[in-house]
């Protein structure tokens, strides 16, 4: 029995808000409202391109009309595996897709005295829902948002207009860069910092926070880690007695799904633990954040959304 429940939804708005970012709104085809969700949640969007299904997680950027609509913003990644390209080129008004229930790997730390958000590029997306929640809760917050240029800064104008005192924009084209040392300096006790954006930016911000004495408990980050390509390999399913090929640019999870084998999943990025699967044979290249060092060393389990065979074969106990 599949535990990956989702709803069929159709696109009711598809706006190219910047040259690289497209903003979509969806409503359920059954006419019912979506579930309310917590700030920082993402949903997995499933799209069928005729041959197989792309499933990508996207942060919710908001909802309207008492949850009758969900909104996401998708950045075009031409070097990626095709999901965002497909969304930009093929998903338009009226298109139908699958939306999973919201799941949150980047929640707001409720008892914080102050919330400090550092965003880069499309990393602004989870903070759109953060700011909605902070507004509601009358929380003390500050946003530092780096964009390449004003045109490409999704929501930049909207945010600056609405929250002139809390939003700081850094427009790289104007030579203005966010200085993490300055941002993280002189913050009162009880401040929590949240970082979301390109991998290098997140790594830099976390390193500087660490150097400046911020404890790990006060530092939160979200990276949209897509599975990296690797060597192709074969997989034997011990219980189903069948063999599957995993191609270079698809994850083990995707290969299983394309062969109609359903595995529970949630984040599809190695963080949540849902797709953990038992391995009977074969060496593993672990790329996840979920398994403990001991579990990785034991070699008897794998996170198929992001990890791969080290060699040319794996046997799974499914």
């Amino acid at each position, binding site marked *: 029995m599949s*535990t990956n429940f989702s709803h069929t939804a159709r696109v009711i708005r598809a706006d190219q808000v910047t040259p690289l970012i497209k903003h979509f709104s969806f409503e359920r085809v059954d006419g019912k409202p979506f579930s*309310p*969700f*917590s700030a920082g949640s993402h949903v997995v969007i499933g799209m069928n391109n005729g041959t197989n299904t792309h499933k990508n997680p996207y942060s919710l950027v908001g909802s309207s009309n008492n949850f009758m609509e969900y909104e996401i913003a998708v950045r075009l990644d031409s070097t990626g595996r095709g999901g965002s390209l497909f969304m930009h080129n093929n998903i338009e008004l009226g298109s139908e897709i699958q939306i999973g229930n*919201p*799941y949150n790997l980047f929640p707001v730390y*409720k008892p914080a005295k102050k919330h400090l958000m550092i965003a880069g590029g499309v990393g602004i997306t989870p903070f759109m829902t953060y700011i909605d929640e902070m507004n509601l809760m009358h929380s003390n917050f500050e946003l530092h948002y780096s964009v390449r240029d004003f045109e490409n800064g999704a929501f930049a104008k909207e945010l600056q207009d609405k929250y002139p005192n809390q939003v700081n924009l850094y427009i790289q084209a104007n030579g203005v860069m966010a200085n993490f040392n300055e941002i993280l300096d002189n913050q009162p006790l009880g401040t929590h910092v949240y970082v979301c954006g390109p991998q290098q930016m997140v790594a830099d911000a976390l390193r500087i926070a660490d150097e400046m004495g911020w404890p790990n408990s006060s530092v939160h980050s979200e990276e949209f880690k897509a599975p990296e390509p690797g060597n192709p390999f074969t997989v034997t399913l011990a219980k189903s007695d069948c063999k599957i090929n995993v191609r270079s640019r698809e994850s083990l999870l995707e290969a299983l799904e394309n062969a109609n084998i359903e595995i529970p999943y*949630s984040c599809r990025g190695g963080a949540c633990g849902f797709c953990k699967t038992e391995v009977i044979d074969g060496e593993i290249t672990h790329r996840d954040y979920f398994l403990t060092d001991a579990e990785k060393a034991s070699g008897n389990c794998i996170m198929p959304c992001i990890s791969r065979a080290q060699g040319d074969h794996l046997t799974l106990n499914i």
Partner: protein
Amino acid sequence: MTNVAFKKPLETYREDFTYANSEKAIKRFPFPYPEDQYMYSVNMEHHVRGETGSIYENTFDVDEHYLSEMEERRIVLEKDPDRFVTLSHMDLHQWDVLELLMESFAQDYPKYFSLTKDGDHWIWENHPLGIKHSFIFGDKSTLPCEPAEYITRQAQGDFVLMDQRDNDLYADTAMITCAADWSVPFDLGMSFMEWHGPVPLAHGMGVFERALKYLLMIRLGQPVRRLNWTLTINSRMDTSPEVYHEWGHERGSITPENVGEKIHLRVEVQTLFRLPRSNGMLFGIRTYLISMEDLCKNPLWAQRMHRVVKSLHPEIMDYKGITRYHKTLQDWLSQFDH
């Protein structure tokens, strides 16, 4: 359409203890022992709809004792308002539980409850309690008290709202008027391991580590449940430390003649829900009581009860407060085991 025969006049859970189960209530009682011996386990299962007429038919079970239990809650809170406590960062969680309970009751018991929404303007009706209230969802000033208190005063069982942070769960809001011997407000703000601190043996078995890891991953729309049990003297709902000085002596009042009438099996149906707006968790503790006399009308249950009591680990016996009357109970139950 679920019909419930609410007991009237109201039964009491104190002083004269007029509480009693109908034959129907006895049949649907959640007997908690899968084996002849009892030991701790994580024992969680998906909280899915069960058979019609069973306690699992609906998301939150409303039974014949509803009116009596709500009156009991009212009495406890009147004497001790601190049985409902909350920390200031829990507003979203509170609105979550209000929404969850109202929607569940209205959907599962349309004969008794209704919820009408017009944007944020909601109208809630609870016919058995004679309540009709219009309010603005999200605006505390439109409710007579805190949102979680408001709705849990209309729902059977105790409730804990947990904030999920630091890879842990914190009991930051609670309505506890039928505690099986644990204290709110003492436990308010405790982490998962802290509030389970007093439970013997289970820590060494790693039960709580596994349970916590499992709970942290529970998803929206996929609640889980498990059973917990203890024994109570008389049909006393409020066996909290707060009033222990009032009920503790009852443990010494058991004789071979009154076992059947006085000793009650107390089963908690514990449900756990992911909350949508706060990302927190709701921990529902729905308590069912049955006298030994009524329990043992079922010969299979009687026999198993004897074997569980006979083989109970001394530390567990101790922790559950059974020691003082254990032998008397075991002797009485032996008549059902051949």
